[in-house]
């Protein structure tokens, strides 16, 4: 996202028109395209929102469009000034998005159907307004990918090893500090309580939210590209460590306080606390990266 002043790259096109001018002149056509978009996604998007509200693994979906909208709002100046030059390549992207949606529909593959919205929006932006406008909206647009619940197959492929890792490390630490504990897969047996390292504690639930926040955070910090990627990737170990701590604290509570206290901690308080802790770690990682020689392009800040 390194778009400079709007007028440098549009030299190729003959007409220099801003997005605002084009939108007001082509409003009926634009409305027609939007109506088609609504017809395409009227069944798909509400279904996704329902999943955000019903499945805790996906509840972060509600915040993602808001963050994306915020990024778009920040760019409104550049967006309205960007010279419009329709790009035929956008039509290809549009065809690709249409195929994605059709195939996803045939297979009832929700991820594909939902993700096609982003591809179609990208295609439309390119086709109707061109590269300059696309560059401005690309980041907020692709950020929307985090709002789509990840497919079950991938979720499980990632969640299961994470669960085992969290249980392994937690049990090792608990044993090291003298807590009597047995482990069977992702089930941890303490003297008075059986803990199941479920999805919630494997870290994957917080991992997706944390990755999304990491991307948003990396985008607002004045960092070099490499440091930005490092910051986003740091969300992975942070989510895992935070969840290991959750299981260890629960184990210690069973041993030294009471199983009831542990149960309360584990199920109600811990989720929020662990996420807050992980977020604090992420903020710290960002601050640390800023202090090292990370910031080189101050104008890269949005």
């Amino acid at each position, binding site marked *: 996202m390194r778009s400079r002043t709007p007028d440098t790259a549009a030299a190729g*096109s*003959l*007409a*220099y*028109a801003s997005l605002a*001018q*084009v939108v007001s*002149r*082509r409003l009926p*056509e*634009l409305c*027609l*395209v939007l109506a*088609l*978009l609504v*017809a*395409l996604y009227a*069944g798909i998007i509400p279904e996704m929102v329902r999943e955000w509200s019903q499945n805790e693994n996906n509840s972060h979906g509600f915040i993602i469009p808001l963050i994306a909208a915020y990024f778009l709002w920040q760019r409104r100046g550049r967006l309205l000034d960007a*010279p*419009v*030059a*329709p790009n*035929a390549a*956008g*039509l290809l992207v*549009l*065809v690709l998005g*249409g195929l994605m*949606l*059709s*195939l996803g*529909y*045939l*297979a*009832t*593959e929700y991820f594909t159907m939902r993700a096609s919205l982003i591809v*179609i929006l990208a295609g*439309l932006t390119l*086709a*109707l307004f061109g590269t300059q406008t696309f560059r401005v909206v690309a980041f907020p647009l692709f950020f929307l990918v985090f709002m789509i619940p990840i497919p*079950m*197959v991938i979720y*499980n492929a990632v*969640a*299961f090893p994470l*669960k085992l890792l969290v249980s392994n490390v937690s049990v090792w630490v608990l044993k090291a500090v003298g807590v009597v504990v047995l482990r*069977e*897969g*992702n*089930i941890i047996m303490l003297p008075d309580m059986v803990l*199941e390292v*479920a*999805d919630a504690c494997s870290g994957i639930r917080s991992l997706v939210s944390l990755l999304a926040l990491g991307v948003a955070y990396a985008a607002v910090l004045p960092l070099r590209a490499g440091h930005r990627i490092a910051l986003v990737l740091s969300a992975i170990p942070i989510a895992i460590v935070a969840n290991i701590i959750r299981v260890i604290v629960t184990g210690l509570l069973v041993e030294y306080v009471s199983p009831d206290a542990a149960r309360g901690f584990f199920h109600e308080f811990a989720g929020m606390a662990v996420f807050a802790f992980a977020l604090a770690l992420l903020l710290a990682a960002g601050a640390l990266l800023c202090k090292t020689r990370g910031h080189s392009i101050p104008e890269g800040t949005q």
Partner: protein
Amino acid sequence: MTAFSRRPYLLSVLVLLPVVLFIHLHENVAVPQVRSFDEFPASLGDWRQAGSETFSAETLDILHPTAYLSRFYVGPNGERVHLYLGYHGKGGIHSPRNCLLGSGWFQESRTEKTVNNIDGSPIHLVETVLSKGNVRMLMLYWFQMRDKTMQSEYALKIQEIINSALYSRRDESFVRISVEFLDDAEGAQKAAYGFLKAFQPVTKMFVPR
């Protein structure tokens, strides 16, 4: 194309309109079962039914089968086999990978095999051994769409696309035969395949062609 050109809008409509029509006009038919699972034989050859299972509302809410059968059978040498048949008239099978691996079961092995039916038609199935503590379980499972059997969720997806596009139907079944054991892996395997051989011709009669 200039900035104000109308062409990109018209072309975009040209691309999107067929997709809109397709999505709103293409509908899969819910295919009813050929016959109810109630008619599934309680005994066949040397195998006798020894109990059945009714799923809780929560389980059904996740699995969403149109109809299902969950029964235990006891074989000629007292071996106990569990059979699960899930029929999904409009698609949407819940893969066993989703549940078992989350609830403490650990996958020891997974092999893809092809065995032949009595009539010579192949069954592409997965043979997997899972363990939880010292209990182990041998499981044979496969997905079935019309007369095709599949081993993976991905193959199933592709077949769903093909069947939906060609025949507007997405009915599919999931078949799982499992045997719990402590250390006699060979015995478990023998029991599972013995059961499979005996029941496959019957199982087939419950899957819409």
